[in-house]
């Protein structure tokens, strides 16, 4: 999966949890959860959505490394087949 398709999959998952957010409004290099106001249940549901869409398992110990959208996309790219 190329980066564009991956970003689209991430946005689609995010949209289901935070439908009011337009992808164009998000700064990819700024902390995602500050921009979108995701609480811990939203965050878990977001990861669940990514797990369903991409088959990637994100262990809890990796949460700290996933701050920005860029971080997340890079992380997923390394793991998506």
């Amino acid at each position, binding site marked *: 999966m190329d980066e564009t398709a991956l970003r689209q999959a991430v946005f689609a998952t995010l949209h289901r949890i935070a439908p*009011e957010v337009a992808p164009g409004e998000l700064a990819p290099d700024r902390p995602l959860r500050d921009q979108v106001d995701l609480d811990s249940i939203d965050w878990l549901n977001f990861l669940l959505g990514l797990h369903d869409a991409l088959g990637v398992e994100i262990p809890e110990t990796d949460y700290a490394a996933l701050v920005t959208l860029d971080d997340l996309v890079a992380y997923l790219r390394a793991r998506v087949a």
Partner: protein
Amino acid sequence: MIEFKLPSLGAEMDEGTLLEWKVKPGDPVRKGDVVAVVDTSKSAIDVEIWDEGTIYELVLGLHETVPVGTVMARLLEPGETPEHAEEEKRKRAAETAAAPLPAAPAPAVAAAAAPGAATEARVRISPAARKRAAELGIAPAQIAGTGPDGTITREDVERAAATKAPPKDRWSEMRRAIAAAMARSKREIPHYYLATDIPLAVASRWLAERNEHRSVTERVLLAVPLLKAVARALVRYPEFNGHFRDGAFVPGAGIHLGVAISLRQGGLIAPAIRDVDALRIDELMHRLADLVARARALTLRSSEMTDATITVTNLGDQGVELVQGVIYPPQVALVGFGKVTARPWVEDGKVVAMPVVTASLAADHRASDGHRGALLLAEIARLLQDPRSLDDAAH
């Protein structure tokens, strides 16, 4: 014959609009079945029935707005014939019509106690007008009738439609419901407030170890042991779990935690998870995730809106450290948890960095005193130091 009436859907939610019938005449129903979807000021609610029988007739039309207590449908009791139901209906209608008119205006309390009867007696409407009113989404009770005996005619409906206010805006309706409930709380409930800091090193470690080898689909959030600890503590301090009605505290029949959930479009809702003290940690996580998802999708059930015996608000990891809550009437307490942060903490004579949550209690001084409130918070703190024991089903 059973009359199925619009149930109460929470404090200060006094009317509902029928969006959908989930049953039709002839359908058998059992306790807990969802029979209709009703729109309230906060959300669309799946309305459950608590009787067993067969749907005989649907009284309420689509898009009609009626007060709580209005007859929505009639059911045949097990073994009852339609003829018997018709007879019952005639009898009840005659009783309503024959009720002597009070010499003075009836006290407001009596009117509130029997809103169904009052509404049915008041609205006279021709079948064609009723049909047209339903199509236009206007409640007959809101239309002035000009026909014989004040009967509402089709022309009256058309006139009402022409002058009708624009459709309700969900957001302003929700603000209105929150304003009414919270103003009532601050007007009627003498709140007192307590707070304490709880160290969470043990609970956090226990949870991290538990989650480490689990798939994201089975992971448990810290909110779950917090909820469980509150429920367990309430077993020992039952005067915080229940309702204040008619000048007295009525203990809750179970420990049903209302979970405050903020909605993305603004506003909040606090539906209940029942019998939290008896749920294992995994089951509670499952219920919480399901409840949050359905609250955000606005598909809650009527019992979830009224069952809560206490509310828990969890500011989560994006919030602040302390909440001083407003009690949701007729409940008598609210437990709040702030954001978990690393703070300096003295342990064995040394200052260490400790994950700490500030737990707070807002309680009704009519039902409890500060000393017992302090003991409740201390019990919650104690239970969280032994998280493994929180996973027991029995206690």
